[in-house]
């Protein structure tokens, strides 16, 4: 057994231990195969259980029936899914714009932070479900109201991540920028922003999930029905009509959406930080 190789690039690529390489490949395959296998096994068990015990589909539908519903109701569900996707992405985008802007202002000015931070905290700690009815009254359209609700939920992580990140720059590096008489803009561009990036990416992962939750919860509270509505409304409608398989189908789509958002933000984080930040570097073992 050889100890872990150091990161000394001077030594160049040492002759690679074949056994270790094979083990690494095996682990890579397993990291996909094992969760996939358990997932398939769980679904198979569900299918078998529903069939074996004749569970009525209006209580718990079998996976095959859920799939059939997904196919049959595809067009109408797709429209709702698209509505939820739009709502989620717009909320996340606005949260990023607002959170980063306000975060930068906070990081640059303590007095402004002290004056405004309580508002941000109030916005964060008050459950969105409790504010939503008011927002529904004041907002111009339902879509705007839903957007505001989802935005409130996603905004705070971005704000706090940005503030902490912008303050996290190494003190000696700050001194270096002072020594070379960097302008505030150069300091922000070359030092503070890159230092904040790991914190920002972490908050983006959190906010991505939260914006979807916000979009779904807001729609539940609004109780919107009709043609131009999202997946949450499909779930409510189906529950009124006792269409349990359809509820599951919509639920599957919401989950898929959440997974897609998580995968996307995780991928973005790896892309941006992969070559330098500890959190995303794959260590050679």
């Amino acid at each position: 057994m050889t100890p872990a190789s150091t990161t000394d690039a001077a030594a160049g690529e040492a002759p690679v231990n074949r056994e270790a390489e094979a083990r690494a490949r095996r682990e890579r395959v397993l990291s996909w195969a094992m969760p996939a296998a358990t997932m398939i096994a769980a679904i198979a068990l569900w299918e078998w259980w529903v069939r074996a015990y004749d569970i009525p589909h209006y209580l718990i539908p079998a996976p095959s029936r859920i799939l059939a519903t997904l196919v049959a109701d595809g067009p109408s569900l797709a429209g709702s899914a698209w509505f939820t996707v739009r709502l989620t992405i717009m909320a996340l985008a606005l949260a990023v714009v607002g959170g980063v802007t306000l975060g930068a202002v906070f990081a640059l000015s303590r007095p402004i932070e002290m004056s405004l931070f309580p508002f941000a905290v109030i916005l964060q700690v008050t459950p969105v479900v409790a504010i939503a009815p008011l927002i529904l009254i004041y907002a111009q359209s339902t879509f705007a109201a839903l957007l505001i609700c989802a935005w409130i939920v996603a905004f705070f992580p971005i704000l706090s991540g940005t503030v902490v990140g912008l303050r996290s720059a190494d003190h000696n590096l700050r001194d270096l920028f002072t020594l070379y008489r960097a302008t505030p803009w150069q300091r922000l561009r070359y030092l503070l922003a890159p230092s904040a990036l790991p914190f920002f990416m972490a908050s983006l992962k959190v906010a991505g999930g939260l914006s979807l939750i916000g979009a779904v919860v807001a729609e539940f509270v609004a109780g919107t029905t009709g043609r131009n509505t999202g997946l949450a409304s499909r779930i409510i409608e189906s529950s009124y009509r006792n269409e349990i398989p359809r509820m599951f189908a919509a639920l599957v789509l919401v989950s898929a959406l959440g997974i897609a958002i998580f995968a996307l933000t995780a991928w973005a984080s790896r892309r941006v930080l992969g070559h330098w930040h500890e959190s995303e570097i794959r260590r050679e073992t």
Partner: protein
Amino acid sequence: MGRPLIRMDRVRKWFGEGTLAVDDMTMAIDEGEFVSFLGPSGCGKSTALRMIAGLLPVTAGTIGIEPGAGRTEHDLGFVFQEPTLMPWATAFDNVYLPLRVAGVGRAEAAPRVDAALAEVGLSRFAGAWPRQLSGGMKMRVSIARAMVTRPRILLMDEPFAALDEMTRMKLNNDVLRLWAEHGLTVIFVTHSVFESVYLSTRVLVMAARPGRVAADLAIASPWPRDDGFRNAPDYAAQCRMVSDALKSTLDDARIDH
């Protein structure tokens, strides 16, 4: 020689919490000297260096640096105790930073950055990320960054304290070479007697609580100095002299170590 290049006149530094870090420090350094600030931790040597660099304001007294002929963007290079590299930038971009901040375009800066990296023996590593470099190599990048503006004065704050002995000796020789080739004036903060004697034309021994200059010792040993010098009787004698001066400051302060 004319006027000294760097002067400190009755400089005093109080920190906010009520510590007198530097008390009444007066000294002058001529162009071309290699001066070490030697002392125990807490003697204000790093504080003095940071004040000279303009990174800390003085509480009282004055610090003067003779204005240069304006031949470089920056007359001061600074090397920190840690390599202090930006982890998100390659070795090249780290060294390019001072020029970038000074508004020099990438294409124009490239030959100078390459030359600075070549001077510390890292030509092949321009594209390497800091995490791929060893401690000694990171420190070399840090030195290249300090040298890329062609400064007249190089300030070094215990730069090699965290490195192993072999790497430290190699880097000592590199610094001496840069000093001789570029006609630099160097202030080198260290707590190692051996390092200060090996490198310096003059050692300022500093005492702690409050920080002050306790002794000003010229190291008259001939140049150039190389690894042979480390075994010379002269080196041992100089080390003893400096070590005695350092010891007497410790006895004066009656600090337990």
